[in-house]
């Protein structure tokens, strides 16, 4: 079938997964469903010990077997040791046909590509896929199509029962022996454990892996003992230098600063820039600069931010400290300052990814957002955004919260350079649609700014704003004028990846790369 954004989704895929094609951002509004439930092993005997001596013992006690689904979080980013550590043990035990259901997978997980080749891993369900895993997927090595979901979409799939986790492994900077785990403390401090909270509630077996055992009770706990089966202490759960940036540097790149300035102006001149507004931005050069540029305007107009959300960094924490931001709700810490803030400031809260963005619960922070600033690998003239496949057709990115907050917010702004090297960012048709165009409002590039024609209210609001506005088609033409019209990427028919919309409908598919062309 051809779905609402004109992407062809093979009928056999829809049939096989019992899915529908994407039909609009609010298609499933008010749909009622019964939540999934895990199998629970009651810990009745007060003398029962949850400590296991190693990962092998944890796997054995959880009765690991072929075909299971194992889940992981990515709070340790490129410094993560947990996924590889667990999978090495799984491989050593001769277990096969595992599905990894991770909140994201990155370059730290290159060894998994080998397990894909060997048939030990046959399914990947993740937000991000990078490095060798992405290459293995795009080259058709994974037995089943990888399912790419947003952060909100992933927890929706878990809560609705689309995916059932057999064993959740939760790397935790600190835990007590009874499984109360926290994101703060220890030597591998990551601030929060937001990505794991839903896993802990919905998995049949939950194993906390830590390198810092602390006295009971480790409170307030991010992951509660009520959900944890076993606790395993290892030497190191990650490389602290790669888990967190000491300080994210402010960009001096004039191009990024120029785009940040445009973006700041757009926010300040919009009807939503009022006291109590809410905001999410990433840690990229331009979006981080918007934080800093917005501050003097807020001070001048006596406007306070109601809440800031997302991947949290120093500039927002400083605004919290100085009273310009009322609350921070945090699903991921990006730097040392954000960890210090969540430890010490009572207005800085840890939230679960379900609270953050699951579209099928009864309300999320994403729905209460005014402004979001996002990036893009590609944007097409229908405003569809690709953040997953590269210009070579290989899976190498992550939707993260992109589709969630684009859909939830009142004004979603994409910042991206018009061209990258010889690759046009603005194009006729994105290789892979990850965030549907009807949820994307403004595209800011270094060459000009396009407002989605659906947003007549924003176009009206900016009629006295002097910025280089143009149409998305003009941006595409400029990009093509500079780098030429790109050739189509040659793909085979076989589907190797499914891009699931946050509500569970199918937005697009990724096909196997045809490298003989």
């Amino acid at each position, binding site marked *: 079938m051809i779905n609402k954004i004109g992407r062809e989704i093979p009928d056999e895929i829809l049939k096989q997964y019992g899915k529908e094609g994407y039909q609009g951002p609010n298609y499933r509004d008010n749909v009622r469903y019964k939540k999934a439930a895990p199998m629970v092993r009651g810990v009745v005997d007060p003398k029962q010990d949850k400590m296991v001596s190693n990962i092998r013992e944890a796997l054995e006690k959880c009765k690991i077997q072929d075909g299971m689904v194992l889940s992981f979080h990515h709070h340790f980013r490129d410094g993560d040791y947990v996924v590889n550590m667990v999978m090495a043990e799984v491989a050593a035990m001769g277990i096969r046909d595992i599905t990894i259901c991770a909140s994201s997978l990155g370059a730290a997980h290159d060894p998994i590509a080998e397990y894909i080749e060997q048939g030990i891993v046959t399914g990947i369900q993740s937000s991000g896929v990078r490095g060798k895993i992405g290459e293995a997927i795009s080259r058709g090595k994974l037995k089943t199509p990888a399912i790419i979901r947003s952060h909100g979409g992933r927890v929706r799939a878990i809560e609705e029962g689309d995916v059932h986790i057999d064993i959740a492994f939760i790397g935790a900077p600190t835990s007590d022996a009874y499984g109360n785990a926290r994101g703060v403390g220890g030597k591998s401090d990551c601030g929060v454990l937001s990505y794991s909270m839903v896993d802990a509630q919905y998995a049949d077996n939950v194993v906390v892996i830590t390198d810092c055992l602390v006295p009971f009770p480790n409170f307030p706990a991010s992951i509660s003992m009520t959900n944890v089966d076993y606790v395993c202490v290892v030497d190191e759960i990650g490389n602290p230098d790669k888990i967190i940036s000491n300080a994210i540097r402010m960009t001096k790149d*004039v*191009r990024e*600063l*120029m785009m940040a300035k445009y973006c700041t102006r757009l926010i300040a001149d919009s009807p939503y820039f009022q006291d109590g507004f809410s905001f999410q931005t990433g840690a990229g050069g331009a979006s981080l600069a918007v934080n800093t540029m917005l501050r003097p305007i807020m001070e001048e107009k006596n406007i306070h931010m109601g809440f800031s959300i997302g991947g949290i960094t120093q500039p927002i924490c400083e605004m919290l400290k100085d009273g310009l931001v009322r609350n921070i709700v945090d699903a991921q810490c990006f730097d040392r300052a954000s960890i210090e803030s969540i430890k010490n400031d009572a207005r800085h809260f840890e939230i679960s990814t379900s609270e953050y963005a699951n579209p099928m619960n009864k309300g999320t922070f994403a729905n209460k957002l005014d402004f979001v600033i996002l990036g893009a690998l590609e944007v097409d003239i229908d405003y569809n955004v690709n953040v997953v496949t590269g210009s070579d057709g290989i899976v190498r990115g992550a939707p993260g919260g992109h589709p969630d907050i684009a859909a939830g917010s009142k004004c979603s702004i994409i910042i991206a350079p018009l061209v990258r090297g010889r690759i046009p960012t603005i194009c006729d048709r994105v290789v892979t649609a990850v965030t549907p165009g009807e949820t994307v409002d403004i595209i800011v590039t*270094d*060459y000009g700014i396009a407002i989605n024609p659906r947003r007549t209210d924003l176009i009206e609001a900016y009629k006295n704003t002097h910025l280089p506005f143009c149409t998305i088609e003009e941006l595409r033409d400029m990009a093509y*004028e*500079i780098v030429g019209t790109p050739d189509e990427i040659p793909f085979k028919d076989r589907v190797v990846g499914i891009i699931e919309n946050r509500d569970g409908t199918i937005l697009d598919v990724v096909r196997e790369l045809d490298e003989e062309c």
Partner: protein
Amino acid sequence: MMHPNKKRLRRSMMFLNCQKPGLIKDPYIYGTDSIILDLEDAVAENQKDSARYSLYHALKEINYRGVERVVRMNGLDTPHWKEDIRVCVAGGADTIRIAKTESAQDVHVVEEHVLAAEREFGRPEGSTLLMAALESCRGVMNALEVCNSSDRLIGIALSGGDYTRDLQTVISGTGVELQGARQQMVIAARAAKVQCWDTVFTDLDNMEAFEKEVRMIKMMGFDGKSLVNPRQIEIVHEVFTPTKKEIIFADKIVREIDEKKAQGIGVFMVDGKMIDIAFYEGAVRTLKLAKAAGIYEEDL
């Protein structure tokens, strides 16, 4: 007939190294009035030919969207300048900035070669404009003769680094060492009715001092400034663009003087200020500047 672009708005003239294709591919996005594609000091001595090659293709292939394309050629004391001129003209540069100009004769020499190149490459004669960088005490002392040297000459620019070396001093940050040259040059330029630009400011971490300097040179009468970084553009444009209040006042003056002149009245009051014909030229200049900057749309 005067070249239509001779008096165009040139508040900001930003240097870019021709040796770096990434820099020269799209500087127009920053909104500078002119770019100066540099073949001179920024380019290593053994890279002059490759820089010229990049320059030629940039001029030929890139749509600079109305931004003036000035090329800084190498000085007449180098082996490069003749080929620089041929490449500039063949590529269709709008203007050539003559480095190390010391006299009217220097401009004449360049003019002669430009004309020959225009004939060689079939470009309209007189289409290539010139500007002169004064980089020595002798050049500064000869400012007026340089300003009057050619119909192609749009103006003169101070090059503070070389000038202060020749003056046997250094750039101090106070501006005292440049005071004489600035004053002399801007007076000469105004006398000859050409434009005048101030030297670059290289301390990118001190935007406050930069702004102070821009305000000072605006007050001295300069038309704009040579720049080394896009971050400097906004401040220059802000300082050199008339404010809303100035535009409204200038608009009133022009309208009133036109009207009163018809009624035979010479002196009158506008917003509590005594106005006569002496204000007319300044007011018209303010409106022209505002119009060129895109913030005034009337047809006065």
